């Protein structure tokens, strides 16, 4: 698997969520994703960026444009050093929220992508990796 391009952005304010949406949109356009696929990965990025900000206290996203045996894909890795998630199964359920959101972020982002991985340790932070392939 080859990385065609990679960039990292900080997520510290709510304006950064908009910036992440635009960066992910630009990457999806570069990879010639269909309009629906662009919209899905950008929406997933928006949900995860907001989680990073609201629950992780801010963090970073790495946006990787990938090529694997001729297949093009977009991988997003969100990392924060926030309080972490004690019960991952519970956090993945629709409707569960510890904050003011709708509780659709993690489950919704998973449905909008082809690959989804989450690692979290209480007190150490959370790392979410998603990927969508063309």
């Amino acid at each position, binding site marked *: 698997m080859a990385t065609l391009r990679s960039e990292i952005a900080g997520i510290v304010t*709510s*304006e950064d*969520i*908009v910036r992440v*949406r*635009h960066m992910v*949109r630009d990457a999806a356009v570069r990879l010639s994703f269909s*309009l*629906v696929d*662009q*919209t*899905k990965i*950008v*929406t997933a990025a*928006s*949900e995860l960026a*907001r989680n990073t900000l609201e629950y992780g206290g801010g963090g970073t996203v790495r946006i990787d444009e990938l090529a694997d045996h001729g297949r093009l894909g977009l991988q997003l890795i969100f990392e924060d050093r926030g309080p972490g998630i004690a019960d991952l199964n519970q956090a993945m359920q*629709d409707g569960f929220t510890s904050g003011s*959101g*709708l509780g*659709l*972020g993690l*489950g*919704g982002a998973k*449905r*909008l992508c082809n690959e989804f991985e989450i690692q979290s340790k209480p007190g150490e932070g959370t790392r979410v990796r998603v990927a969508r392939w063309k």
Partner: protein
Amino acid sequence: MKLGEFLLVSIQVDMHDKLALALQQDLTDRIAATGARGVLMDISALEVVDSFIGRMLANTAAMSRVLDATTVVVGMRPAVAITLVELGLSLNGVRTALDVERGMQLLRAAVRQPWEEPDGDTPV
């Protein structure tokens, strides 16, 4: 923009969360101040509606209902609609129409027959 007894709102920029909340607040204030009976929200310029914006639309519809106004959201892009459903957001309680013209028809009908709420307008 005010048109007769209706308020027209066209969202033209990719809003950050605080801006979306400010719009919701501003719109609610304007409904109260003008006594508008209907609100038409044009979201045809929005390339993304995530759960936050979706919630703002649903909240605005609910608040306007309490203030005796009907909200119709128009112009949602097909890719946005597909994504919203997959995300798990069905926008219960939000009336939608394909374009501004149909939205206006819906608003006029709702104002004429205030007691006959169409299906799907049940409070969230």
